[in-house]
């Protein structure tokens, strides 16, 4: 400390002193933040340091640092494995289907909700539409199982219409649709909140001017309200792209069974099976890292595209 000070001269000496002074003056501020910093180091950055086991043969007795390096062995064995391409295909299809299909619904619904004049009814609809957001995934998948298995609600409706009984829960062909559309059922209402907020900020002067020019409600919705929420929509789209391949472990895990595994087996479930169940830590950490890196680049790519198309971007 002393030698550094004498080298860097008088100017930085006073600067350092003033920094020290500010640190002492505001020490309580730093104490308020300290616990969270410690928490992030332990639960976010220690695991990131631990990611090196993806390039090692992790040995519990040696610990993370002392385990021997093996380079890309685990990555190679993943790509050579029988499962690899099925897993990647399932994950990518489910991710894109889910992202594309669920994206427009909150936008459309919030535009429609915004046109409802009866404030009481609007509030009432919102209350109901938000509710599914708070339903846990276990209950949601439980409801799917009840509704879509033989003798369930859907089966009963089908039998009224004269269709034969189908067990959707164990059908590989139905898995993706159930996954995506139950997500839309659950998330659309909640997704409206942010768009409704953006719509409430639209300048009423624009609408008045358009009305004087003879624009209909539909035209005003299309030419005034929709452009007003597009920047918000773009930002949300980019953020969704970032978690694209983080295909909900939780929901896929709950929905997967022996019979629909052909389409329901996604990368995160494989990581769980190999890592937590078979304790093959290095291999599954490597698969996780691969997943993570792809995700990270997805954000960058989608961000770049959005920037080029609409001049709105996250960073």
């Amino acid at each position: 400390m002393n030698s550094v000070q004498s080298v860097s001269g008088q100017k930085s000496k006073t600067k350092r002193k003033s920094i020290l002074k500010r640190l002492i003056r505001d020490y309580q501020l730093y104490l308020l933040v300290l616990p969270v910093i410690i928490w992030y180091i332990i639960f976010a950055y220690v695991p990131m340091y631990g990611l090196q086991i993806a390039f090692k043969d992790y040995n519990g007795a040696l610990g993370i640092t002392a385990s021997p390096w093996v380079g890309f062995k685990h990555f190679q064995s993943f790509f050579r494995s029988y499962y690899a391409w099925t897993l990647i295909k399932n994950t990518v299809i489910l991710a894109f289907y889910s992202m594309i299909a669920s994206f427009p619904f909150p936008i459309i619904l919030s535009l429609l909700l915004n046109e409802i004049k009866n404030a009481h009814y609007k509030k009432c609809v919102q209350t109901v539409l938000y509710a599914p957001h708070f339903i846990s995934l276990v209950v949601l998948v439980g409801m799917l199982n009840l509704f879509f298995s033989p003798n369930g609600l859907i089966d009963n409706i089908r039998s009224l219409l004269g269709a034969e009984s189908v067990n959707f829960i164990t059908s590989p062909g139905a898995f993706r649709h159930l996954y995506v559309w139950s997500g839309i059922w659950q998330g659309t209402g909640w997704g409206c909140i942010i768009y409704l907020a953006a719509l409430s900020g639209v300048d009423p002067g624009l609408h008045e001017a358009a009305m004087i020019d003879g624009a209909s409600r539909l035209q005003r919705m299309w030419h005034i309200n929709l452009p007003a929420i597009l920047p918000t929509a773009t930002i949300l789209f980019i953020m969704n792209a970032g978690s694209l391949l983080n295909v909900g472990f939780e929901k896929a895990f709950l929905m997967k069974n022996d019979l629909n595994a052909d389409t329901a087996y996604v990368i995160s479930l494989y990581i769980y099976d190999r890592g937590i169940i078979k304790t093959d830590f290095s291999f599954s950490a490597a698969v996780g890292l691969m997943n993570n890196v792809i995700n990270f680049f997805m954000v960058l790519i989608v961000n770049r595209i959005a920037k080029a198309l609409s001049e709105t971007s996250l960073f």
Partner: protein
Amino acid sequence: MAVIKETRRDRIFNGINLIIVTVCLLLVLYPLYFVVICSFSNPNSVAAGEVWLYPKDITLDAYKTVFENKDILIGYRNTIFYTIVGTLFNLALTLPAAYGLSKKNFMGRNVIMFFIVLTMYFSGGMIPTYLTVRGLGLLNTWWALIIPAGCSTYNLIVARTFFANGVPSEIEEAAIIDGCSTFRVFFQIVLPLSKALIGVLTLYYGVAHWNEYFRALIYLSSAREKVPLAQVLREILILNTMKATAGSSVDEEMALYYANLANLLKYALIIVSAAPLLVVYPFLQKYFDKGVMIGSLKG
């Protein structure tokens, strides 16, 4: 605004709009309503597909079976514990940090925020996190569902944005001139002014704890007595582990009744597990919009 009269075209638009929104409302509402009416109905009627708009042959058998199950009661107790202690821990960690990081005289706050936000886009992943938790000796302890869930980056950003914009800085400055320490300003002036924020965070964190099953799945694999309700729900709703006992009766009609009851109690279980949320839902509703609004101000 109302200078110009509505045209016929606009009235048609209104009508169609109202119909579409009402259909959406029913699509969301009916499955929820259906669960409620089934849970009160006779198991045989539900299995025969006779329940559509109202409960049939009202009975509380499903609820009785649910409340006689020891696993469910233990899970319920555990979840209440995790929700209360976990949410308090979340608030104790998030609120002071968010306040500190919102202050301009906090040196290096941008660097710290960068490293915090980075974790939203890049993380160690399931396995290294699991090894860390295991290394800390938290596996199969009560803390496994509380400490690793300590802070959510999204909520931290929401809180920081609120403190930066929602609390008038003049009040704080006046207090500091009067000789208040930072601790006192935070605890006695800022926190009492932040009830909306505390409401939002309690809601977000509380719901997350109430619905948590993933951490229980991997961290509590051999601590049966500590698993939360969601884990028990998974076993009964999805893995079908629960059978309603028919006792010693071999009566065929009774056997069928109990077989159907085993299915029916799932409806009751869904209601029981969601009951606390349903009760507080109307009171928390005013915080929904606020929460998303505060969060969307960032940047």
